[in-house]
């Protein structure tokens, strides 16, 4: 059975490192790549009446931007190199959504970059990589 690597990609330098790492491994093992862009979103935040009315429009714009600007160029580049690449855009708590996606797509490994946040903020809110290390349903590689 061929492998699937789930790579969290948001266009940042850290996620680019994760992508490079994952692509190299995929070339060697023939694994399929699943690039996931997760937009941070809480159903319990507060919106004004006007924001409620515009939400669907904004969401459509955000998804469109994520697909065309962030994921599509990378997908094209990797496909040209002969890799099998799929992309997905989701909303939610980033680490939780990545765990759900891994199960949903039967990923054999999750690969994420590390932003290297230190200090109070990281302690209080934790990091995506830290949460995944504790909660991922499949092996998780954290790329520094």
């Amino acid at each position, binding site marked *: 059975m061929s492998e699937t690597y789930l790579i969290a990609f948001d266009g940042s330098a850290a996620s680019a490192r994760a992508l490079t790492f994952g692509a190299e491994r995929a070339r060697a093992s023939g694994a399929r790549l699943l690039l996931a862009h997760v937009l941070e*979103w809480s159903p319990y935040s507060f*919106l*004004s*009446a006007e924001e409620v009315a515009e*939400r*669907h429009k904004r*969401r459509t714009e955000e998804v469109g931007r994520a697909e065309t600007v962030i994921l599509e160029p990378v997908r094209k580049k990797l496909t040209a190199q002969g890799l099998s690449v799929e992309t997905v855009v989701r909303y939610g708590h980033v680490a939780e959504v990545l765990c759900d996606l891994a199960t949903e797509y039967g990923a054999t490994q999750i690969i994420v970059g590390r932003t290297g946040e230190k200090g109070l903020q990281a302690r209080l809110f934790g990091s995506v990589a830290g949460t995944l290390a504790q909660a991922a349903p499949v092996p998780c590689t954290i790329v520094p």
Partner: protein
Amino acid sequence: MKYAFAALAAASVLAGPAQASLAEQVDAVFAASTTWFVNLIFANLPGTGVPWIVGWLVAGAVVFTLYFGFIQFRAFGHALQIVRGKYSDPKDAGEVSPFQALTAALSGTVGLGNIAGVAVAVSIGGAGATFWMILAGLLGMASKFTECTLGVKYRNEYPDGTVSGGPMYYIKKGFAERGLPLGGFMAVMFSIFCVLGSLGGGNMFQANQAASQVSSVLGVPTWITGLVLSGIVFLVIVGGIKSIARVTEKVVPFMGGGYFLVGMSILILNWDMIGWAFSEIIRGAFTDSGIVGGMVGAIIQGFRRAAFSNEAGIGSAAIAHSAVRTKEPISEGFVSLLEPFIDTVIICTMTALVIIITQQLLIDANTGMYILGENGRIANVEGVGAGVPLTSAAFGSAFGWAPYALSLAVFLFAFSTMITWSYYGVKAWTYMFGEGEAKELVFKLIFCFFIFVGAVTSLDAVIDFSDAALFSMAIFNIIALYFLMPIVKRELNSYLLRLKSGQIKAYK
């Protein structure tokens, strides 16, 4: 209304020293130009002391409660599960969640009605008004359910992904669907009253209470608060400075929570009095406690304030809820029925209990009757006016710092309610005059102007006009709800059937 414009245009060129007389002028002109409207809406039912419009709202709420078989109690648990996200498809994350729909609509209702309105109710109707307020809140849940379900079902969806909805849309489309006449006419009438309600209860009442609170606690003249509020709202709704609105939307829920906590602590500190307070409420609800109008007076005040506070049957919440993209109109109706409960049954009751328990209202020790002031209101310990000052005095008697915190809360509540109501007003305005930025701008400018008018006018004139404008929305809305409620019933039965069969499934 034309005279008010003229008076202000002329007076606004005058410099500072003329401000006191300006306020008086605005005041007089305002009272003179709105009295006929107020008298029409609050005319008594022939041979009784009950305003027909209050009877109208309560009758509607009773009809919906019976027609849908006490849906507010049957669906209460399910509604909480929906808000918790139990039935939300994770794939829809990023769309408006049921929780967000609930809080956005609540931001238009939780606010001054809960702080000032309740104080007015108990200072005229005594403790007994609280009982009728709670009852009206519970009944109102069924009205809210009906109107918000229809709001979602008959909204307009535009190609760019935005939506417009509310009573004007379900009146027009729903009547056409059922082959009933006059839908278009009633939709326009509703829109006219919605614009007036937006300027009245959603604007001037808020500005007025905020200004009088800031003036009594901090000594700032009302016209300054009026100008400041007007300026900030202008920046947000006309200038598009979203960051201010965003800050408020974040702060207001915590204000609401803080208000609830402080109120609860006062109740807990006086826990031995709670039994007495409830016996006062029951006694006042069913006997003559010495207020004007006796027991009927308590009923009227309770119902009036509940309706003003939770807006059930008014149609406003349907505008907010219809913007939510949900597959099931009924589930949005279920979410909305929680609003009168939170707003009236919980928060308003708490305010009333605080006022009663801290014994702000003077009772004659010999007769057990309330002592009336010369204006027909019950005299209070501090001798302050009804509205925010009374609530403020009640909270202040327990915590010395409370009036300052309350001033801030009142200011922010007023602001967030104005922002929400400006949205309702714009929707009704564009329904009548067509969508378009220039048309929206005209309304928004009028809206900002009325903030100033509201801040400087006297409380009685403003409250009466606010009430009248807001209640008048209910005239056409409830007529429409009577004709359209079979559609809601069909939706409800189908929903409940699919919920039972597992077709509507829980994700968590």
